[in-house]
């Protein structure tokens, strides 16, 4: 399911056209990536109208900053980076708050001091997962800090590679690992606490 952008987007000629704010090149990029940006904005927790608004702003900023785009990252990564900055401006939840997270304490209780499970994951009830997962996952996503949520969505839904997400969110690989670790475990713990367990 890995996404491949149109090959033209990676060529030096296309880069030059973008830097000159060539209308046709811009339109191609807007058309290709607008649905992805919109989807990621929604996935990161914005309401529909907010997501529309932020998506529009992302592309306006994209067009404005094109003369500075050096093509060192892919166009898509650059766009997700702008999205991240817009979300940070708009939402306090996007401030970096990586120092402490109470999911870490929850996870501490899962393992003994030799690193073995002392409180292992419970077996999921497959039928329940299928029927009710949507509602529960939606509610559990609400409990994930927005920045972590965006990282999770970029990885799992948009399929971005580690390097791309690090670029877009301006974090190190180690930091991203911690963010994804917390997001995934928070979601899994939340679902488990809602009874996704053995009958």
């Amino acid at each position, binding site marked *: 399911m890995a996404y491949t952008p149109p090959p033209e987007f990676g060529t030096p000629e296309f880069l030059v056209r973008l830097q000159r704010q060539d209308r046709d090149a*811009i*339109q191609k990029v807007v058309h290709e990536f*607008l649905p992805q940006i919109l989807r990621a904005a929604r996935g990161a927790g914005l309401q529909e109208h907010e997501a529309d608004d932020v998506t529009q702003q992302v592309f306006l900023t994209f067009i404005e900053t094109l003369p500075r785009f050096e093509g060192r990252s892919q166009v898509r990564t650059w766009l997700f980076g702008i999205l991240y900055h817009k979300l940070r401006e708009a939402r306090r939840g996007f401030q970096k708050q990586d120092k402490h997270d109470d999911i870490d304490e929850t996870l501490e209780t899962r393992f003994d001091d030799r690193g073995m499970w002392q409180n292992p994951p419970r077996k999921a009830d497959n039928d329940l997962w299928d029927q009710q997962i949507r509602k529960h*996952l939606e509610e559990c996503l609400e409990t994930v800090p927005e920045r972590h949520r965006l990282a999770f969505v970029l990885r799992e839904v948009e399929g971005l590679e580690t390097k791309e997400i690090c670029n877009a969110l301006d974090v190190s690989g180690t930091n991203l690992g911690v963010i994804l670790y917390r997001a995934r475990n928070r979601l899994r713990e939340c679902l488990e606490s809602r009874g996704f367990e053995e009958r």
Partner: protein
Amino acid sequence: MMKVPGMFSCREVHEHASMGTYDELGMMARIRFAMHLMMCVHCARYVRQLKALGDYARRMLGGQPDPERCERIETVVMASCDGHKH
């Protein structure tokens, strides 16, 4: 499962799986990882659940947005692009 020297502990498996650092493991470490999963029902379940979590998130959030909505935003963006330059 017993801790065996040279093997991954459950905690390490859990960390590699949820941080995404599994992708960076070398071949030998991947084999040790796979061996752990074969022997440890808890970690195997944990890894399965994380994978299911990703699948469900993709199914729930990964659909194509409404094309008309996209077109509307695209029109606004391109209009301001034209206004901006002339």
